[in-house]
């Protein structure tokens, strides 16, 4: 048995494992498993069903890889695979999951969390165990109660603390004929008049969550009872005070007459997030604009950066041109500064009031365009900034590709009488596009989701009037998703945001499949392997 176990642990490359090696691996595996089990149990306990399942699956995979001899090569990449599974693959799947839920404001809790929160509520019952009470207060405005139950036991009660039996209470002043202290520490006993005129004392919940006590009448204080009870068998919450039953309807505990409890939970709502697009014109209008601008922005960005990059590469392709290297170094500068910083710099320069661009324009020709207010100007400004950011990349790529085009092609063309434009159009461009085509597609995908420039430059503004959610004229889908989920001062719409993310996924997937087909990437993979 032991020999067999040892054999199983032999490493895949035929080098037999030493005993200490095996022990170390076993201990490590046990530690990982213990952690994973603890983690998954906690996740299930909080109601994070997908997270719990993900952890369990990943842990199972880890065990398989570590225990099975044939998996030796996978052990080398195990850590990377775990990280990829947890932080790349799982979020993609979770996005799909969330897209079919109403996760968002009013539905932020999981179902167990919402039950827990609801069943915390207490009420003062009409009957039940009761005390006669005496009130105290101190100068700070805090209150205390002296309670006497029907069978003669006495307790001292402070808000938020467990009841203290009379025998254990400290700081009691002189007792009167009924055994009630005149004072408790710095708390002074309240007389009947003070009690009758006090607004606060009857609203305070004394004692802890478990043995809470509240004043019911001038003489009586009653033990508080839970207002709601969760009936697991029928999946309903019963109101113990009124007898009403609440059933879960799309993440809301709802009574037969339509009343709802405040703490909702996230629940499956089917295709609701998607059908909103077709059912609500107020919502559809901005979204259609955003989609159109998203494609236009990506297309024009790629077109402009490629055109300028290619033009520069073409004009300065001549190796004898003096100063070529210096010019290239200068033109490369936009590429060397983190783009976030330069986007913010451009934001300052385009500022309509204090920006250098408008000051120069108004000094020279007396105009000051409202770059951040006018939707069209904002779009133009974004494209200018993106051109500045993006052309050096294509300049580099194109100058490399141009040098790879054999010179005798041009010689042959000029012998046949082709002019410079024809040479460019018939030889350079087609050959270049073959080499650069995949990069153009990749650049399109990048710009399609270029959150940084949209958000940092103008935060999607100017706003689209009348949109039910925050949306701007320069918002693209991904920045719109950000607004739905994270914009300050607005409702959180995680479910809807995830649904729109799926639209982005589909667009990206289609473009990528096209790119792979176009570049025969798979065949290249096959060759490389």
């Amino acid at each position, binding site marked *: 048995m032991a020999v067999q176990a040892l054999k199983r642990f032999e490493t895949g490359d035929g080098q037999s494992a030493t005993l200490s090696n095996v022990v170390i691996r076993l201990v490590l595996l046990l530690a990982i498993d213990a952690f994973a089990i603890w983690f998954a149990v906690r996740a299930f306990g909080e109601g994070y069903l997908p997270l719990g399942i993900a952890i369990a699956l990943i842990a199972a995979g880890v065990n398989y890889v570590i225990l099975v001899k044939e998996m030796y090569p996978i052990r*080398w990449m195990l850590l990377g695979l775990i990280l990829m599974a947890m932080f*790349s693959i799982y979020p993609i799947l979770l996005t799909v999951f969330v897209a079919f839920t109403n996760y968002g404001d009013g539905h932020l809790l999981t179902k167990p969390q919402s039950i827990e929160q609801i069943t915390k509520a207490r009420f003062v019952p009409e009957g039940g165990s009761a005390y006669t009470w005496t009130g105290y207060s101190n100068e700070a405005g805090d209150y205390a109660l002296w309670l006497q139950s029907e069978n003669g036991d006495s307790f001292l009660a402070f808000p938020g603390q467990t009841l203290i039996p009379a025998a254990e209470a400290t700081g009691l002043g002189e007792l009167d004929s009924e055994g009630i202290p005149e004072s408790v520490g710095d708390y002074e006993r309240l007389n009947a008049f003070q009690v009758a005129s006090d607004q606060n004392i009857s609203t305070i919940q004394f004692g802890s969550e478990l043995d809470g006590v509240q004043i019911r009448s001038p003489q009586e204080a009653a033990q508080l009872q839970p207002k709601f009870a969760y009936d697991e068998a029928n999946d309903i919450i019963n109101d113990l005070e009124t007898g009403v039953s609440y059933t879960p309807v799309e993440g809301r505990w709802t009574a037969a007459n339509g009343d709802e409890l405040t703490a909702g939970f996230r629940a499956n709502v089917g295709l609701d997030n998607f059908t909103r697009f077709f059912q609500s014109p107020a919502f559809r209008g901005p979204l259609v604009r955003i989609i159109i601008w998203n494609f236009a922005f990506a297309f024009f960005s790629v077109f402009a950066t490629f055109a300028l990059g290619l033009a520069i590469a073409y004009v300065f392709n001549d190796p004898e041109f003096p100063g070529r290297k210096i*010019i290239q170094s200068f033109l490369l500068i936009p590429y060397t*500064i983190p783009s976030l910083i330069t986007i913010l710099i451009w934001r300052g*320069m385009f500022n309509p009031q204090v920006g250098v661009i408008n000051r120069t324009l108004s000094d020279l020709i007396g105009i000051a365009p409202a770059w951040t207010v006018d939707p069209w100007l904002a779009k133009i400004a974004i494209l200018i900034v993106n051109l500045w950011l993006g052309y050096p990349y294509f300049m580099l790529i194109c100058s490399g590709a141009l040098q790879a085009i054999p010179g005798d092609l041009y010689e042959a063309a000029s012998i046949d009488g082709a002019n410079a434009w024809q040479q460019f159009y018939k030889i350079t461009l087609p050959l270049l596009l073959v080499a650069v085509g995949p990069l153009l597609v990749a650049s399109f995908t990048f710009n399609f*989701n270029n959150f*940084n420039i949209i958000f940092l430059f103008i935060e999607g503004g100017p706003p689209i009037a009348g949109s039910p959610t925050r949306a701007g004229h320069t918002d693209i889908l*991904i920045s719109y998703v950000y607004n739905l989920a994270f914009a300050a001062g607005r409702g959180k719409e995680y479910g809807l945001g995830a649904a729109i*993310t799926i639209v982005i996924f589909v667009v990206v997937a289609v473009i*990528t499949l096209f790119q792979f087909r176009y570049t025969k990437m798979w065949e290249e993979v096959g060759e490389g392997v």
Partner: protein
Amino acid sequence: MFNLTFRQRRYFSYGIRWVVALILIFFAIFPVLWILSASFNPTNTLATAKLIPDNIGLDNYYSLFNNPNTPFGIWIWNSIKISSITTVLSVSVTTLAAYAFSRFRFSGRENMLKAILLIQVFPALLAMIAVFTLITQFDSIIPAIGLNTHAGLILVYLGGAMGVNIWLMKGFFDTIPRAIDESAMVDGATHWQTFSQLLLPLMRPILIVIAILTFIGTYGDFVLARVLLKSTDQYPLMVGLFIFTSGQFSQQWGPFAAGALLGALPIMIIYLVLQDQIVGGLTQGAVKG
């Protein structure tokens, strides 16, 4: 038409190209000049159209480091810390995996490589709601890797570590002849010894390039940090700089200019010093990816 000799026509063409070049260079470096000028302009307005401000001063740099609302020193430190840890871990994980893909033959290898490439198409940025949800849930189980922690953010970055870099690195491993490994193995070396003592030193140039690109990429991230980090003293530089411009403290362009310059400096130095290696690695990576 002018009667120009070949030589004259050539100089004429050079001249025009130089004019074009100067216009382009102006376009390229104008923001840099402007931010340089604004950072030394103590008036904290952008209103000056002069490139060289009237009274040059270091006031902006001083207020940058002495305003408790905008702890610039902490931001820079956070950025360097997060980027360095991410880079080291990411490169380690990727190198190990790339070694396995290059040197072992196992079933599903080809499909795994393709799958890694496919998953890379959907970066964590796109799934930001799910990533935020995930880290929020971590928060209630293990707060140390939850919201507003650098550890949580780094983990999310590492989720994207195995991507194009695997392809790039596997390609370089493939260029090292297997005969080298085999001779070492014949002498009794284990896989680990071959990998760590023989191949890693040979891989050093490409490791450095990938490390630099990873560092720059992490240093320049904005969205994930913005979504996952909540308190000002946890921010990395990029999120911090955004605060200057977004009007949260009423736009402070002067200190922003100083901060932008200091923040860009490390990356610009890296680029200028290692220009050739980076461009080489980049184009190779781009063509492969």
